């Protein structure tokens, strides 16, 4: 079992004409990591993947795989295997020929290829399906064949370009678990591209969140969610309520922000921005919908209390989403777990919401994810 090979991107900039697709990216991916690039479409994440796989050369900077500079080395010579978004299985070849294609290229005999393909078919739980054509398989089976085909060449790094996006929800969730298991079994480095934060958070050891060619944050999924580095990360990953305002005071790790419409509120300064905030700065505070609760003492005021009127309610199954309107028409979303039948609807009521200051983060104002 290999321990995995590290991938390092050093000051990578990629330009297409006047357009800069990726700007000065620095990423160190540990060997054996499941690493995701997460961002909206057009943020440059696929471009980075293509630079790692060798389909394009960065305009500036270096790609290192296992410490070796990959400059000038084509995709067919790199120790990487790429799984395409549309899988790109060869439709005119049988499943086993597809899987063993890299061995065919290397000149292995049909017998050897067949043997290896059958082993891999066992590994992806599709034994005996080698003689079918890809068109005879279901979406999830094709997915697994694509993985087997990529693993056949024993790559050091597996690159996955949103391979689950074509699957339906249930299968996608199942494949997440399966991908993670396969990665643990083979122990090689996985680099995963996705715009789906659920995929990134559930599968990855580490996530890089990208926006318009710039990496905003690299951290574990947990940190990305709890301690977002920028307003973009806070608003792109998961749902968040944003409160804009100016910093009124700073005390250790916490700050009081004088919000535009909801009064003075207290929050924890997000770790990445400690020291970057000063009194009077434009700032943004983020509170997740699930961090709000209905305050025990209704009608009181305080620096972790927001008053709002519940205008609408949506049933989500495991929770209710309550949409509220605060002072000055400020829209707030609160998520209340569904604990059973005896819940009283808050719709139409004036409420005081409460949050734990450690569950709210404040940071310098910046660009939010669109929507």
């Amino acid at each position, binding site marked *: 079992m290999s321990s995995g090979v590290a991938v390092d991107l050093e000051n990578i900039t990629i330009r297409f004409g006047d357009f800069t697709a990726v700007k000065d990216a620095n990423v160190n991916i540990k060997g054996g990591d499941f690493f995701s690039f997460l961002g909206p479409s057009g943020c440059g994440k696929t471009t980075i993947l293509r630079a790692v*796989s*060798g*389909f394009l050369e960065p305009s500036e900077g270096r790609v290192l795989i296992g410490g070796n500079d990959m400059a000038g080395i*084509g*995709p*067919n*010579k790199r120790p*990487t*295997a*790429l799984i*395409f*978004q*549309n899988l*790109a299985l*060869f439709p*005119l*070849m049988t499943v086993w020929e597809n899987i063993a*294609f*890299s061995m*065919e*290229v*290397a000149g292995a005999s049909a017998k050897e290829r067949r043997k290896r393909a059958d082993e891999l078919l066992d590994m992806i739980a599709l034994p005996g399906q080698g003689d079918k054509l890809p068109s005879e398989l279901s979406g999830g089976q094709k997915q697994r064949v694509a993985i087997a*085909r990529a693993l056949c*060449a024993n790559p050091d790094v597996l690159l996955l370009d949103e391979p689950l996006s074509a699957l339906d929800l249930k299968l996608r969730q199942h494949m997440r678990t399966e991908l993670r298991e396969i990665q643990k079994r083979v122990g090689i480095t996985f680099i995963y591209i996705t715009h789906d934060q659920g995929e990134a958070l559930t599968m990855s050891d580490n996530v890089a969140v990208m926006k318009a060619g710039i990496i905003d944050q690299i951290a574990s999924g947990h940190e990305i969610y709890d301690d977002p580095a920028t307003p973009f990360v806070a608003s792109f990953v998961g749902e968040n309520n944003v409160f804009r305002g100016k910093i009124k005071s700073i005390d250790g790790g916490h700050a009081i922000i004088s919000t535009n419409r909801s009064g003075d509120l207290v929050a924890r300064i997000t770790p990445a921005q400690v020291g970057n905030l000063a009194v009077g700065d434009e700032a943004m505070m983020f509170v997740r919908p699930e961090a709000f609760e209905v305050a025990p003492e209704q009608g009181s005021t305080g620096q972790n209390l927001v008053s709002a009127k519940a205008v609408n309610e949506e049933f989500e199954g495991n929770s209710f989403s309550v949409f509220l309107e605060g002072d000055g028409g400020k829209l707030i979303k609160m998520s209340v777990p569904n604990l059973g039948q005896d819940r009283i609807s808050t719709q139409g009521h004036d409420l005081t919401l409460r949050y734990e200051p450690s569950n709210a983060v404040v940071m310098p104002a910046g660009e939010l994810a669109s929507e």
Partner: protein
Amino acid sequence: MKKMPFAEFFRNNGPVMGSLLIGLVGFWLIFLILLPQLSMLDYSFRFNLPPAELGGPKDVYTLSNYEHLLYGSDETKQSFNTVDLKVFVRTIIAAIIVTIFNIVLCYPLAYFLGQAKGAGMARLLVVLLIIPYWINEILRAFALRIIFGETGLLNEALMFLHLASEPIDFIRQDVALYAGLGYAYILLMLFPMYNVIESLDRNQIEAARDMGASWLHIHRRIVIPHAKPGIASGSTMVFMLSAGALAAPQILGGPSSLWFTQLVYQWFNDSLNWQQGAAYAIVLLVSTIAIVLTFMKIFKVNMGDIGK
């Protein structure tokens, strides 16, 4: 209950429009394709009789027209009709060579057009390729004759560059004929190839490249198998039309080289023996169809693929 043929077609188009469309297709098939061919077939088995004897006791079916192609005479079967048979074999072989030549020439071009990233550039190139075909086939053949002539553009250029000391007789060497035939139907090879190659998912090429495949391996295993229906369809058309071409051999052929269609033409036009001409034409038609079917069998192409 038995299902009405074209029931759905009528439901979608209405009874009036549906009947009209099916009627037109039927007219096309029966009057423009089937009946002329059948009458040719009928002619080929009859004697060339003066009008007065038509329908008379001498007007019976015969194999003599076919025997003439084989033996050169209606009476004796002593020797084969080597003159005409040679022309026939030469025509078939030359048409095969022209087809192969077109495949080799069009494949790289179709690959470039189909997979080039700058689609605008490719479109422009396609238009540039089509424009010469706005000119009549005969005029194009004459244009080639001028280019390949003794004092033509090509000879002048070769002499100017000192690559030739005296004019080369491209016409007598049949170079002009092959070039003319190759050029006449090249778009019919290019477009089917271009269409299938354009439909090839570029990711498949990249996936193969990612797995270490060489350029040659990618073409052998990915691109050519995918392009096979287009190649087959283009080859069928080019082969059939080349074997049946008349204008190019007439204008560009050397004085000693005859194309089989010219023999057919002579029987119809010069000898006024339509029956004999029809037999020659039927032999050409049946042989070319047989050859196409054989090649399709060898290269495992289905009839349905060709229509793609």
